């Protein structure tokens, strides 16, 4: 590790949802790695990514057939590591979701917020 990284702002944009389980895992893993390295990490769920955050959805997504790790496990671990989870208001509307449909500790933000977050981030990862 050659440079100080703590406090850097990392924005992970996740556009993939429960229909494509293999695309759900890595972004959360990278987010957790960055959080473990004391960075300030936020995952922004938009477009199909919104479906990951619907109550009851993530526990049905098993990432490996033999593993007991589900997408819910990953989302909970990410939160435990301090990763902030945010969801796009407009995408929620697309899925007919309200705040009551969301798993705990997810905040809803509007489109302007993502622009500001991206402008202020040291690193943006888009999936």
């Amino acid at each position, binding site marked *: *590790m050659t440079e100080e990284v703590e406090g850097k702002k990392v924005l992970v944009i996740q556009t993939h949802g429960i229909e494509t389980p293999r695309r759900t895992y890595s972004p959360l893993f990278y987010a957790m*790695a960055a959080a*473990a*390295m004391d960075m300030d990490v936020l995952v922004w769920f938009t477009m199909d990514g919104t479906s990951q955050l619907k109550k009851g959805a993530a526990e049905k997504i098993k990432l490996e057939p033999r*593993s007991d790790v589900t997408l819910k496990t990953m989302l909970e671990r990410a939160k435990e590591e301090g990763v902030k989870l945010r969801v796009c208001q407009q995408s929620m509307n697309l899925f007919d979701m309200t705040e009551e449909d969301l798993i705990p500790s997810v905040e809803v933000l509007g489109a302007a917020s993502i622009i500001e977050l991206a402008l202020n981030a040291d690193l943006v990862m888009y999936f």
Partner: protein
Amino acid sequence: MNDTVNIGKCVIRTDLHYLVDSHCWVRFNDDGTLTVGITDVAQNMAGPVLHVYIRKKGMRQKGQNLATIESSKWVGPLKAPVSGEIVEANLALEKDPGLVNRSPYGDGWVMRIKPLKLEEERGALLSGAEAVEAYRRKIEEQSVKACAEVAECEPK
């Protein structure tokens, strides 16, 4: 003298100090430094460790990242149990991260640090029966499965 206690398949050494919530163990060395690593419970939960990304120098405050440990299903930090200066990193882990699995309390040590304010911060470290009990509670609450399902644990 037996200085290990088994909780399920996980081993706790009673001659070490622990920050149970961080899954971190600490050994007090004669030269005043501390050797730090992750516990057998943590390596069982993580599964085969694939990478250990280690800080090699610098000052660390208590709770800051010393290393980032990755398996195929988990990634997390080894947090500084106390504030101090990194004096030695276990570079063998870069070539053989599996040492953390095979010998978490031995060759799989991660870091040696020179503490800055040990007297002030050591109160958070648990040892002996107190540490075992705290870990037993934590395992019951969170990770019984991880400790129960791991089939093999090589000598620590």
